[in-house]
């Protein structure tokens, strides 16, 4: 008996050591880093933002903007891949070329884009696939974004399908490649080209020139960018200049290596045993972020507090957002806005209550979409090497005084 219990103890000690050495089971996903300082330096057309890099520019929004349905242009996150972005764009001569397997090549100026085609608008969430990456443990490779590599804007432009119809797709057409004007410093570096299969493109995909009623900000892709509602932003090519139709998929770094997750049920892997088969990140999963109150802020005891935030998914639509004030033991329904901004937009939620206990209080939000998919607890989200698609139940800790 004694011997058996000794063996048991020895085994579990060995087990713990083994877990410790893998470093995965020992460390679980946590809340993304919050409250990073904004920079003292303002980038063109932007307020000072959380700044990870100036070349290429990588800017993050602060949490407070997610109390509102639309993210202001001057606070909207920025993510470029290549360091050399044209410093001068002439809107009179800027031309977008459509070529490849088309009946007629097109060269469309901004003016023609705005006048010769039906103008459409869509309100849609733009989110980096690596948004909230800092949640992953062990630290996943890439910029350690908090929750602010996302935003929602009203985009105006022309349907991609209208442009392709005008050019006339040839029978063999299958893939559409999109290339922007940003370039690498070194001429041999591959361009940031994206390819999408025709089946992935519907009438919601637009070639946009306007964001929240203004020209696109320079750093958000002026003068034209691709808008693919429901999809992560890696395919929303900025400073779009070329649309090329092909019959075969062209092997590209940014398609074949970057922005991919394990191609298995849990989309997960371990640092020691990386998944051999991967797939593109494509559609966004269900997520909510609290915009007010913010992390570590102070709220007044017995005051009428209204928690505000946003929820979204890939366009299935948000069914409900639940709030918990007791570490997720019980959940209460938040009030959603009327949803009139459409299924690709931020759905705002609000939840009123009076904090009656002094001291630290955790507020959690969980969104559930119309398919019944819901946000897991952060600790239940499994690891992937790129730190993509984090969508844990959101948390802010405040102090009631």
């Amino acid at each position: 008996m004694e011997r058996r219990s000794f063996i048991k103890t020895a085994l579990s000690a060995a087990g713990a050591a083994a877990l410790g050495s893998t470093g995965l089971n020992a460390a679980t996903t946590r809340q993304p880093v919050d409250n990073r300082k904004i920079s003292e330096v303002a980038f063109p057309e932007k307020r000072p933002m959380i700044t990870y890099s100036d070349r290429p520019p990588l800017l993050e929004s602060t949490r407070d903007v997610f109390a509102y349905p639309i993210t202001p242009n001057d606070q909207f996150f920025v993510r470029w891949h290549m360091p050399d972005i044209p410093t001068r764009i002439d809107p009179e001569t800027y031309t977008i070329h459509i070529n490849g397997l088309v009946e007629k090549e097109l060269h469309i100026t901004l003016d023609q884009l705005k006048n010769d085609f039906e103008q459409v608008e869509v309100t849609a969430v733009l989110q980096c696939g690596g948004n909230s990456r800092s949640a992953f443990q062990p630290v996943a490779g890439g910029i350690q974004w908090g929750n602010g590599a996302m935003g929602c804007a009203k985009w105006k432009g022309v349907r991609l399908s209208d442009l392709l119809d005008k050019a006339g797709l040839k029978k063999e057409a299958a893939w559409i490649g999109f290339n922007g004007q940003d370039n690498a410093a070194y001429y041999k570096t591959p361009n940031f080209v994206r390819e999408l299969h025709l089946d992935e493109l519907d009438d919601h995909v637009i070639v946009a020139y306007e964001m929240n009623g203004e020209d696109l900000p320079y750093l958000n892709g002026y003068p034209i960018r691709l808008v693919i509602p429901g999809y992560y932003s890696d395919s929303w090519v900025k400073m779009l200049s070329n649309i090329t139709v092909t019959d075969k998929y062209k092997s590209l770094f940014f398609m074949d290596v970057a922005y991919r997750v394990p191609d298995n049920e849990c989309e997960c892997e371990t640092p020691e045993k990386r998944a051999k088969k991967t797939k593109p990140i494509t559609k966004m999963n269900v997520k909510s972020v609290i915009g007010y109150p913010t992390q570590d802020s102070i709220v007044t005891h017995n005051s009428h507090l209204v928690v505000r935030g946003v929820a979204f998914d890939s366009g299935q639509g948000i069914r409900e957002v639940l709030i918990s004030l007791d570490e997720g033991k019980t959940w209460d329904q938040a009030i959603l806005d009327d949803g009139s901004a459409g299924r690709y937009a931020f759905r705002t939620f609000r939840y009123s209550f009076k904090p009656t206990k002094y001291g630290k209080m955790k507020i959690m939000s969980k969104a559930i979409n119309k398919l019944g998919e819901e946000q897991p607890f952060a600790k239940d989200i499994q690891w992937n090497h790129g730190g993509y698609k984090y969508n844990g139940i959101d948390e802010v800790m405040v102090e009631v005084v």
Partner: protein
Amino acid sequence: MKITNRIKKLLLAAAVIAVPLSAKVNEDVAVPYVAFPIKMGKGFDVVQAQCLTCHSFGYMINQGPQSRTFWKEKVEKMIVHFKADMITEKDAEIITDYFFEQYGNGKLK
């Protein structure tokens, strides 16, 4: 005379403000330089010479603390996928060691 001048000036200022954004972008856009607090250490001169050609210090130091293998693979990615083939094998080693020493998590793998 003085007053007319002032009005003129005001009108001019109004005209400048009223210029649409598109015309504003038609001027050269200057993305600011940000001085990221990168750590000094052995091999820094090579990092400065090789890595800064394509991207800022910020891009490097905001990857989080990582293993030696991670940094080695990052440098390899720059050479293989981004075609920075001017980085010699020796320099790749120096860069890897620099990042592991300054921005490492203490783990080899």
